[in-house]
């Protein structure tokens, strides 16, 4: 029989142990998580529908560990050589999962877009977690709709970190809505600036016609080979300069499959990019301070990686990109 003051952890996991909430409760500057548990728009190896659930679990474990480590002088950042605390955690709200209808992709689009639009309209930063990468399109669509009201005269930039371009117009039986077309659907939004779209981490074989079309529109493609050759700092600098040229906001989509499959096999469309977790963490650290208007992280497929490391790496990536918003420097 437990003692009366025994501490229990909640059986219900939320992203980073955040509080649950509805869009109507959001305040300016908060971070609003949205789950997108759908892989019905993936064409081969499925399992990403379990991504939001596993990342709620992994981000909870991560934050519990960080809280333990923070007791005392705070957390020590070895790379930045400074101590920080987790003062920003209270700014996170978990809105829950969008309603997914596997037989009605348009309804799923509206469900996801409705949540990210509501969050962005209230001044919060929507962070949508998939799910396959197609879900990044409705997540961005919602942000686009909100910005069309709050900033009707502005267009926004876009950074797409991925092993793949996702710029096809159609794919087999999945038609125009699938995990290989999401970036093209984003490029068709009325307030996206196509010349401010940037792809980072593209590996292997792509459609040369897509490359030609992206570059003709002024977009920038940085391959995985270029990333490893030039280094993360230079890549981040080029990407941010391109995406922000004449713009004040960037939408960021993070597909974990840009990582080499040797490190991260738990994803649907693996590549051999030679991108390591360190490359990815450094890149997200470099873009985390940018004026982001929305983020999605997609393609975590826990059933494809029995080792469990894929979702642990993904949780760490999420923390890294949110670090300036979640932490506060306490001493150097």
């Amino acid at each position, binding site marked *: 029989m437990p003692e009366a003051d025994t501490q229990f952890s909640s059986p219900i996991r939320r992203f980073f142990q955040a509080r649950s909430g509805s869009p109507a409760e959001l305040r300016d500057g908060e971070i609003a998580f949205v789950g997108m548990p759908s892989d019905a728009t993936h064409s081969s190896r499925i399992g990403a529908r379990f991504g939001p659930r596993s990342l709620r679990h992994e981000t909870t474990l991560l934050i519990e560990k960080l809280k333990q480590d923070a007791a005392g002088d705070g957390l020590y950042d070895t790379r930045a050589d400074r101590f920080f605390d987790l003062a920003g955690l209270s700014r996170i709200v978990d809105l829950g999962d969008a309603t997914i209808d596997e037989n009605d992709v348009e309804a799923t689009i509206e469900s996801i877009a409705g949540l990210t639009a509501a969050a962005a309209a209230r001044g919060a930063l929507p962070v949508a977690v998939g799910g396959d990468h197609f879900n990044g399109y409705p997540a961005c669509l919602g942000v686009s709709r909100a910005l069309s009201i709050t900033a009707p005269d502005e267009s926004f930039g876009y950074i797409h970190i991925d092993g793949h371009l996702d710029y096809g117009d159609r794919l087999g039986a999945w038609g125009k809505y699938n995990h290989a077309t999401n970036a093209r659907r984003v490029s068709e939004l009325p307030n996206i600036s196509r010349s401010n779209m940037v792809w980072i981490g593209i*590996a292997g*074989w792509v*459609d040369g016609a*897509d*490359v030609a079309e992206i570059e003709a529109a002024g977009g920038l493609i940085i391959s995985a*080979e270029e990333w490893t050759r030039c280094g993360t700092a230079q890549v981040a600098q080029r990407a941010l300069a391109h995406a922000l040229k004449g713009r004040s906001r960037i939408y960021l989509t993070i597909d974990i499959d840009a990582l080499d499959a040797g490190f991260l096999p738990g994803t649907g469309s*693996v590549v051999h990019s030679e991108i390591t977790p360190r490359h990815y963490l450094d890149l997200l650290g470099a873009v985390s301070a940018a004026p982001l208007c929305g983020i999605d992280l997609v393609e975590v497929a826990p059933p*494809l990686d*029995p*080792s469990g490391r894929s979702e642990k790496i993904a949780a760490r990536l999420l923390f890294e990109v949110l670090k300036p918003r979640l932490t506060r420097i306490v001493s150097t």
Partner: protein
Amino acid sequence: MPLRDAPTPRMAGHLPFMRGPTVALSEVSAGQVVAFGATLGGGFGGSPYAPRALRETSVYFGSHFSSNMKAAMDIDRRAVLSGTRIAGHLVELGDIDLDRSTASPADCIATLTAAICRQDAIPLLLGGAGNLVGSFLEGVGRGLGLDVELVRVASDQTPPAGKPFIVQLDASDFASIWHGGAAWPRLSGLSLTACRQKMAILGTADLAGMTITGLDPTRQGLSLVKTGQRLLVTAILDLIYARLGALQPQE
């Protein structure tokens, strides 16, 4: 699009290597790359299943026949793949029927390899264990009537000048950090980039045959498309494309 009107799913149906046409030995033409499988383990657990696994994985790379792609491009090299340099130049014989053959497996491999070489084609052995390469080397030498050298990808060897050679790509040539599918893990092997660079050089020299060995696709944990399989197929395709002159700079 209704499912019934969609293109055939990539992983369905008959799966020859790269979905090349399946031909009889008598139909092989000069200059073709001719794939065949040898389902022999050499004492390793899952190597007999490797030819099938390599074929399954290879269909992912069939960009030259994909209706979803207008022009397949290697984004790392900014090079475009010429479908016409592959179609008709890459064919498949199937697996050697070891059950119905009275000859030893080693003789079967050597005899078939020699026959392909006599038709001025280039055999591609889908192994199978690494020790199959001896029979393959013997067959190439017999078919060409020449002394032939063996080049291991992870070695420091360069293409021998003025002498035909075969390339052995073994799963253990890759450093184990990059995959999980080798029969013999190795810490000091190559990255894919280093391997591809070497393949591009070897493919334009006096290449007489190629082998893929050492894969154990029964290793658990990485689901249908295992990383080791993809590494091997990615690398061997570079050798094939270099041999066929199928990669051309982006215009």
